[in-house]
């Protein structure tokens, strides 16, 4: 890089940047650019804001809401949040780029997350991820992290990612599809799972609600469940979850017996002088 001629402090020469840098300031006036954020979405954003003592706390759920509309966080989505919360687009972008669940490119119908943290990796997670990369890749190139097989958003399209610990280590190795748990996976079972998703099927997760798609799930994360009482059902207890409790029953082990009545609470502490 060559410095512009002249001494800037003398104001003797106009300081210009290199030619190739072209700055396109984004329009910040006028109505929201994307028609995707319709009145329903705006109303939902207002509902989110109303949940919190201070409006900016709504930003994380609102970015989930944006993803439910666009299947990723676009510039238009960032502007939408900025306008709803009356903060700058820079402030929204700073947040949107910090968190791994906010995707910068349009995602598939499903998001497949393979845990490759140490314990899952040692139990087979690395092999599963590698197999799925090969399987979903094309033209001899394995699919990369956060890349999509198929046209994003179309039925059967899959975005693949390796994930950090998904907090199901007793069920390792684990995969999530749209954040629903598929436990105790193997290379073969993971391959079958992905095959089924590609065919447009929706296998039931080991724990969680019936599979939908990523956009529906992002709407749920934003706080809008199609039918909360219904989706809160579904299997959630794996044999591993209750191993200790079952063993205790078998052996007749219990916690020490509690008093028959709730014990009296301790007296109030002495008032400070």
């Amino acid at each position, binding site marked *: 890089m060559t410095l512009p001629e002249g001494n800037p402090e003398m104001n003797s020469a106009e300081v210009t940047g290199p030619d190739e840098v072209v700055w396109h300031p984004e329009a910040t006036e006028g109505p929201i650019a994307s028609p995707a954020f319709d009145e329903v979405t705006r109303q939902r954003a207002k509902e989110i804001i109303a949940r919190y003592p201070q409006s900016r706390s709504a930003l994380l759920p609102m970015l989930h809401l944006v993803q439910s509309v666009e299947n990723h966080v676009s510039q238009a989505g960032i502007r939408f949040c900025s306008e709803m919360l009356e903060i700058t687009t820079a402030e929204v972008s700073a947040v949107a780029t*910090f968190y791994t669940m906010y995707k910068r490119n349009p995602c598939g119908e499903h998001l497949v997350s393979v845990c490759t943290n140490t314990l899952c990796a040692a139990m087979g997670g690395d092999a599963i991820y*590698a197999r799925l990369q090969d399987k979903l890749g094309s033209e001899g190139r394995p699919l990369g992290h956060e890349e999509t097989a198929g046209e994003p958003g179309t039925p059967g399209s899959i975005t693949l990612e390796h994930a950090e610990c998904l907090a*199901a280590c007793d069920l390792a190795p684990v995969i999530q599809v749209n*954040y629903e748990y598929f436990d105790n996976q193997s290379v073969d079972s993971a391959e079958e799972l992905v095959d089924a998703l590609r065919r447009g099927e929706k296998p039931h997760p080991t724990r969680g609600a019936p599979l939908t798609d990523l956009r529906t799930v992002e709407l749920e994360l934003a706080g809008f469940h199609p039918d*909360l009482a219904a989706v809160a059902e579904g299997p*959630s207890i794996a044999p591993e979850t209750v191993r200790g409790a079952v*063993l205790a029953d078998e052996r007749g082990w219990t*916690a020490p017996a509690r008093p028959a009545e709730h014990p009296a609470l301790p*007296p109030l502490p002495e008032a400070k002088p």
Partner: protein
Amino acid sequence: MTEPTRPDPLTPVLTRRWQLDRSWSIDTYERTDGYTALRTALAAQPDQLITLVKDSGLRGRGGAGFPTGMKWSFIPQGPTGAGAKPKYLVINADEGEPGTCKDIPTMMADPHSLIEGCIITSYAIRANFCAIYVRGEALHCIRRLRQAVAEAYAKGYLGTDILGSGFALDIVVHAGAGAYICGEETALLDSLEGRRGQPRLKPPFPATSGLYASPTVVNNVETIASVPDIVSGGSDWFRSMGTEKSPGPKIYSLSGHVERPGQYEAPLGVTLRELLELAGGMKDGIPLKFWTPGGSSTPLFTAEHLDVPLDFEGAAAAGSMLGTTAVQIFNETVSVPWAVMKWTEFYKHESCGKCTPCREGTYWLVQILERMVHGRGTVEDVETMLDICDNILGRSFCALGDGATSPITSAIKYFRQEFLDLIAEQPAVARPDQLAQMTGASA
């Protein structure tokens, strides 16, 4: 006078409802004494509850083990100054420490125990707003909690004038968006305020300047889910489990190369030898090589630590930490440098970037470890890593950086020769199948 009897090897308290039909529903919860502790609590003065929890000796279950009642007592009360501000309760349900998998089953199987604990705790600290910050990937927990909150509102356990007490509370179940650092309490608060999840300088501590710069208690799920049982059982009952300084039951999460991995709720102070017996021993009889007592941020243990009491004091005295009692068990087939590399890749990915020692340190540690595991280590590498760790530990902004050094320094302490042999022989690690995938997995 009789000696106090030793409790049974397993003491299901938090896990006692998990096998029941639809254990997550309010019907099941109420049928098994649910929400009776709330009635007892609301009939008492808030300060009595703080004293009760102090007397019980309950210590935070999120890793640090801070006395819970003491934390609550730090909240300023009174009509003037900080005491006049609104107070908040924030539940840290951002479970993501590698190996840790106790809060997610708790929230799925028995969400009402957490909700009841939140109401009692909010009453004790005089908070009228409570947020449960759940990691976004724990979708089904979020549904269960929201359904539980809806059920609790319908029954009058939440909202205005709860059970005629005049006490009002709203609970919001807030979904995170994928950032391990948000498990750090001040980063969690920033995240909950709609910002990047980066830790804050302390002091001021959340007790005086937390959410929205107001007095805030941040507690872990397992801690607060224990509160209804302490109210209904009393502090003496709670102390009949565990040890003098680490009382109560604790969910130990066994994972990895063990015959029957899973959740085992035992009195604090149980040993890995005892837990392994309960879990059917090592998988396929292949001997134990190394393990974490409480997640990857707690220094590794080896087979020589089988009899270390797994309570806060015992784990610390043996050179590690109790952490989250996430017992990850690895057998002899696993390469230590490989495992350390994987963990370090995790810390590098999750470092928030705010402070230089952690951001740069984890980056360079990954460079060294990946090169070493690929068979291109140099004789200086071990000392270089120790030097980098020395520059991170105690010098990073929050505990994430400190935690990143734990697997490395402890692995070198117990397995230095394995690192030196790897460097000398320049092979791929013992499990080339894992190695072959490494590049892709760290892309």
